[in-house]
């Protein structure tokens, strides 16, 4: 397994150099976005931040305001990505994001968009809310907080060495498809059924 450090925003060339199975440590600024944000972008509406070249993170973080009035991230694990499958390809194409971060993998449309437009899917470890919150150095800002509420808002997070695994690359490969196929074959062997 290769370990690769990347600083956001990234170029198309950097993204195309990644392969399924690479472990990435992300630094720089990324943006959270869940269902409400994806639907909003898909409908062609604008947002007050420029996410081009950066990453969108499927995450509804737990953020609190400290006594000094600053935002502090208390938990920041990934949420299930497949809910964004209907929107993701369009968001990749229209907004030029270079990485989608989440858990559970995504489907054929996103796989194709990653290949066509130069993007990768990075799988964070599900449930690892504390490890991932620790990588957040600073909350740079938040948009759409009033409209969408805290978990659905766009949080602009400055991270250092945020760990994730490339499970869909920009060459049409998907670790999810590979594991599904190999485990199906194994299952058929174990059950004594032929395919």
């Amino acid at each position, binding site marked *: *397994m290769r370990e690769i450090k990347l600083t956001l925003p990234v170029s198309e060339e950097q993204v195309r150099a990644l392969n399924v*199975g690479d*472990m990435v440590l992300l630094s720089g600024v990324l943006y959270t976005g869940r269902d409400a944000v994806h639907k909003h972008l898909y409908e062609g509406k604008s947002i007050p931040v420029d996410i081009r070249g950066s990453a969108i993170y499927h995450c*509804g*973080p*737990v*953020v*609190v305001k400290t006594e000094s009035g600053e935002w502090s991230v*208390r*938990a*920041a*694990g990934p*949420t*299930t990505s497949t809910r964004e499958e209907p929107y993701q390809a369009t968001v990749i194409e229209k907004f030029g994001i270079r990485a989608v971060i989440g*858990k*559970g*993998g995504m489907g054929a449309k996103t796989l194709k968009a990653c290949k066509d437009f130069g993007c990768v899917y990075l*799988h964070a*470890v*599900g*449930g*690892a*809310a*504390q*490890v991932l*919150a*620790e990588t957040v150095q600073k909350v740079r800002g938040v948009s759409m*907080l009033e*409209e*969408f*509420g*805290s*978990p*659905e808002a766009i949080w602009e997070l400055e991270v250092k060495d945020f*760990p994730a*695994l490339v*499970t869909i690359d920009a060459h049409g490969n998907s*670790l*999810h498809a*590979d*594991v*599904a196929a*190999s*485990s*199906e074959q*194994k*299952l058929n062997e*174990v*059950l004594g*059924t032929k395919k």
Partner: protein
Amino acid sequence: MATNPKGPMKTPPAVPATHQTLFETLLELIRMTSTNLPPDVRKSVVDGLEKEKAGSAGEYAMKVIQRNIDIACGVSQPLCQDTGSILFFVKTPVGYDQISFAEVAEAAVAKATELGYLRQNSVDSITGQNSGNNLGPGTPTIYFEQHRSEDLDIRLALKGGGCENVGAQYSLPDSRLGAGRDLEGVRKVVLDAVYQAQGKGCGPGILGVVIGGDRSTGFSYSKKLFLRPLDDENPDGRLAELEKRIMQEANSLGIGPMGFGGNTTLLGVKIAALNRLPASFYVSVSYMCWAFRRQGVKAAANGALKEWIYK
């Protein structure tokens, strides 16, 4: 933390002075369950990590999981931000006032939500509005039982949505899988459930499997199986053997932690059988994620904490 859209908040019941001790005990039980995994689960995570190949994606996922367990416990913050369905399993002395207990439990859940040990996780299924304090129709869930003891036995499991979504119920015979109405058929459908889940339930997972019962008793009893210590032995030899076999075969599928590939697909399998109607044969499979949050206390009838159950 704000959440949107906000629904009408159910006012938590007031806690009378007589129940203050029980309230404190329940609040502490919720905090411990949400932030600190019990020793049997920690041990199985360590065992899982040792089985992964050095430098593999599976090993990498298990290392992150292990570090997350340590940090959460150190800072007393939720292990995972999805603090899940709140499931209480309570045994009370004969004649004990369960109605008051339920009220105090609701008050403790609302307080724990305010303190951030629980996420705002109770949504009106028709309007989509979040109640904001985890109270509402059906939440939290409390299963009561009486027992012939002077003490309270209070256990809590927090079960996240990702893993709940990959649970499955099969009606045997199942022609797609060639699964008949016998233990061999049960084995086939359970392995199918593991295959279907892939990494989506935040594996490595723990299965609660009930053979028989009806559609509702099968699923609710399957959750109760999560109260068994991970390293116990099923007293029914036939089921003990089936548990071992499924565990070994599921781990040979190569799905691995998070579905990244690897040797640790499951951390445990617990199986029970309930009687069924002659006409039906259900197999109900509940999947619990690696963030296997369950704890319990023995308490005096006034609620004073006597001891932790999983230690």
